[in-house]
C-alpha cells in the first residue's frame, strides 16, 4: 500500500527529490475522480446513517410496514439500464478516443440520462399512488421513511443529471471534447454508485 509506505518514511533522513522531478499526486487519476470518490464516500455515510435510523425506528411498536408498489421494479429496471448505457458509453468513447453528439458514445450517454429521468418520473408516480391510497407521511414512520429515502436518492440523482446536462451541452456544441469525455466517465461512476445505493434501499424497503 503506497499510503502505508508513505507514512512510514523518515523524512528527516532524506534531502533532495526522492521521487524524481515529477510532482507525485497520491492517485493516478484526474482530480475530479478523486473528488467524486470522496463525495461518494460522504454520500455512503449519509445513506448508511439513514438505514441505521430506519432499523432503530423499526423497533418501536407503532411501525406498520409499507407494501412495496410493483412499479418500483420497473423504475429499478430503468435505473439499471441507465447505468448500463453510461457504462457502454464510456467503453465506446475509450475505443473511438473522442465523443461527439451523434456518435455511439454520445447517443448511449443521452439514453442513459433520459432513462434516469424516466426513473425519477417513475419514483414520483409511485409517491403519488401511495399518497392517493392514503399512505401519507404522517400515517406511519415506515411511510415517512419511504418518502425520505427515495427523495434523498432522487436529489442525488438530480445532481448527477446536472453534470450530465452540462456534458450534453458540451457534446452538442462540439467544444471541450476532453472535458466532455471526463464528464461521461464521472457520470458512469456516479450512476453505478447510485444504482448500488438504490438496490440496497429497495431491498430494505421491500424486505421489511
Amino acid at each position, binding site marked *: 500500500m503506497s*499510503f502505508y509506505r*508513505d*507514512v*512510514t*518514511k*523518515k*523524512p*528527516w*533522513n*532524506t*534531502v*533532495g*527529490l*526522492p*521521487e*524524481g*522531478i*515529477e*510532482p*507525485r*499526486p*497520491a*492517485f*493516478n*487519476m*484526474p*482530480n475530479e475522480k*478523486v*473528488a467524486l470518490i*470522496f*463525495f461518494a*464516500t*460522504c*454520500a455512503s*455515510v*449519509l445513506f448508511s*446513517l*439513514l438505514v441505521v*435510523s430506519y432499523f*432503530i*425506528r423499526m423497533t*418501536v*411498536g*407503532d*411501525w406498520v410496514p409499507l407494501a412495496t408498489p410493483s412499479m418500483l421494479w420497473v423504475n429499478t429496471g430503468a435505473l439499471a439500464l441507465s447505468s448500463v448505457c453510461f457504462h457502454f458509453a464510456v467503453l465506446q468513447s475509450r475505443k473511438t478516443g473522442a465523443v461527439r453528439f451523434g456518435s455511439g458514445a454520445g447517443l448511449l450517454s443521452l439514453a442513459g440520462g433520459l432513462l434516469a429521468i424516466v426513473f425519477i418520473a417513475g419514483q414520483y408516480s409511485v409517491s403519488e399512488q401511495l399518497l392517493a391510497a392514503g399512505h401519507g*407521511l*404522517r400515517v406511519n*414512520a415506515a411511510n*415517512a421513511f419511504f418518502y*425520505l429515502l427515495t427523495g*434523498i436518492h432522487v436529489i442525488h440523482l438530480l445532481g448527477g443529471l446536472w453534470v450530465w446536462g452540462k456534458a450534453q451541452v458540451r457534446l452538442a456544441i462540439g467544444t471541450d471534447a*476532453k472535458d466532455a*469525455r*471526463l464528464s461521461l*466517465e464521472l457520470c458512469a461512476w456516479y450512476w453505478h454508485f447510485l444504482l448500488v445505493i438504490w438496490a440496497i434501499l429497495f431491498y430494505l424497503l421491500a424486505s421489511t
Partner: protein
Amino acid sequence: MAYVPLADQDDAHALHDPQSFVTKYIWSQDHKVIAIQYGGVAIFVGLIALGLSILMRLQLGFPDTISWIDPAFYYQAVTMHGMIMVIYLLTALFLGGFGNYLIPLMCGTRDMVFPFLNMLSFWFYLVSVIILLASFFVPGGPTGAGWTLYAPQSISHGTPGSEGGILLMLISLAVFIIAFTMGGLNYVTTILQARTRGLTLMRLPLSIWGIFTATVLGLFAFPALLVSAIMMAFDLVLGTSFFMPAMMELGTQNDYEGGSPILFQHLFWFFGHPEVYIVALPAFGLVSDVISTHARKNIFGYRMMVWAIIAIGGLSFMVWAHHMYVSGMNPYFGFFFATTTLVIAIPTALKVYNWVLTLWQGNIRLNTPMLFAIGFIFTFVHGGLTGLFLGNVVIDVPLADTYFVVAHFHMVMGVSPVLVLFAALYHWYPKVTGRMFNETMGKVHFWCTFLGTYAIYLPMHYLGFLGVPRRYYEMGNTDFIPETAQALNANITLAAIFVATAQILFFINIFWSLRNGEKSGGNPWGATTLEWQTPDTPPKHGNWGDELPSVYRWAYDYSVPGMEKDFIPQNEPGMEFEKPRQQKGMEAL
C-alpha cells in the same frame, strides 16, 4: 480518460486572472481572498456569539439586573452562542480560513484544484450565516433548545423559537454542510493531488496534516448532522414522527407517535464528537508549526505526530456515546464508550509530550504567537485531564449537567482552539499583510486572555463539584448551593467581561498595524515552510511567479548542526543524500 501528470498539464488553466474589482475581491476565486472572506465572516459572527455569552454571564452573575433578559432570551443566547462558536466560527475559521490560505501555499500550488467550487463554498457559508442570524428577526426569535437541538425539546411548543427559529437553524445547518462539502472536497483533493514536486506526504507540515484529517472527518461526520436536520425538519413541518414521541405539550396531547428522541441523540453525537476533532486537529497542526518555528527546533517525533493525528481521527468516530451516559442507554454501551474515550487520550497525550519535548532545550523566542501556543498547551492539558474524569461513567453521572462539564468543554474546545487561533493569526499576519503587528500590544492581549480565561473557568470546576446545575436561568431556592457560589458567579462574570474587553486590543492591533506596522519582509520568523518562501509578500495571484517551487527537504530543518543559518527552507536545494543511521536513538521516534 488517461491521467495527465501535473508537469504535463497546461499550467495556465489554473490562473483565472481576475480583471475587475468584483472578480478580484467579491466573486474571487483566489484562495487567499476566499480565506480572508471566510475569516472575516467567521470572526464577525463569533463576536456576536461573544456578546451573547456576556449577556448570559450578566444574568448568571447579577440575576435580574437587566430586565429584558428573560428565561426565553437566556436560552436563545445559550443556544446561539454554542452553535455559532462551534460551527460558524471555529470550523469555518480553521478550515475555511486557515485551510484556504495555507493549503495551496504550503503545498506549493497556485490555487485550489477547483477554484470555482471554492468560491461557491464561501458564498454558501455566507448564506448559512445570514439564515442563522435572520432567526433573530422572526416571530418567536431564534431557537432556545440548546446547541444540541435535542428532540423533543427543540420542536415542542413552549420552547423559545419553536415557531420559526428552529426551522431557520436547521436550514442554515444544511446550507453550511453543503458549503463545507464543497470546500472540503477541494482541500482533500488539493492536498492529495496537487502537491508540488518533491513534497511527499511525509514532508508536509503538520498544519496540513491537521487540516487534511479534520476535513476528512468533516466529510464523514457532517452527513450525520444533515440526516438529523432533515428528519427533524420533516417532524416539524410535515408532522412525521422520526424523533417526536407522543406526549403532552402545554397540557394538550401532541400529534406525534412513537418517535425516538434517543435516535436523534445518537445521530447528533455521531457528528458532534468528531466535530470536536474537526476543530482540534487543525489547531494541533497549526500549533505544532508555531512551536517548532519559534523554538528554532524540529518538531519532536514528526512521524508519531502524523500517526497520532490519523489515530485520533479514526478513534473520534468511536466515542460519541460518552455524551449520552445519562440518556438511559444500556450500561454495557457506557463501558465500551468509556474504554474508547480513554484510548483516544493516548495519541492525544503523545502530542502534548511531543510539543513539550520540542520546547525542551529549544532556542525559545517568547513572542506573541509563541506565548499563545504555550498557553494552549496549559489549557489543553487542563481541559484534557477533566475529560478523563467525564469519560468515566461513574464520575460522569454525578457531574453531568453541572458547571464542571461547562468548564471542561470550554477549556478543551473553547479556550484551547481560540488560543491557537490567536497564535496562528499573529504568526501568519506578516505573510497575509506584509506588516508586523505591535508586539507589546500582542503580549498584553495574551496575558489578559490567558489569565482571564483561567479566572472564568477554574472556579466553574468548583461550582460543578458543588452541584450547581448548568442550563439554569437562575438558581432559585436550591438549598444545597451555598451563597458563596453566587459570589463566585459574580466574579466569573466580571472576569468574562474583562476578557471580552481585552479582545479589543487584538482588533486595534491588527487594524492599526495594517498601515503603521513595520514592513515584515517575506520571512520574518525565519520559517522553513513554503508559504514563507513566496516571491512576493503578501503573495500575489498565482502565488509563485513564473515557476512552482521544488521541495528538497522536510518542513522542520531548524538549527541543523554545522549550518550557518538556524533554518533551511524546504525549497532550498541540498546535496541529495540519505542521512547515516547513527541517529539510532532518534529513529525510534
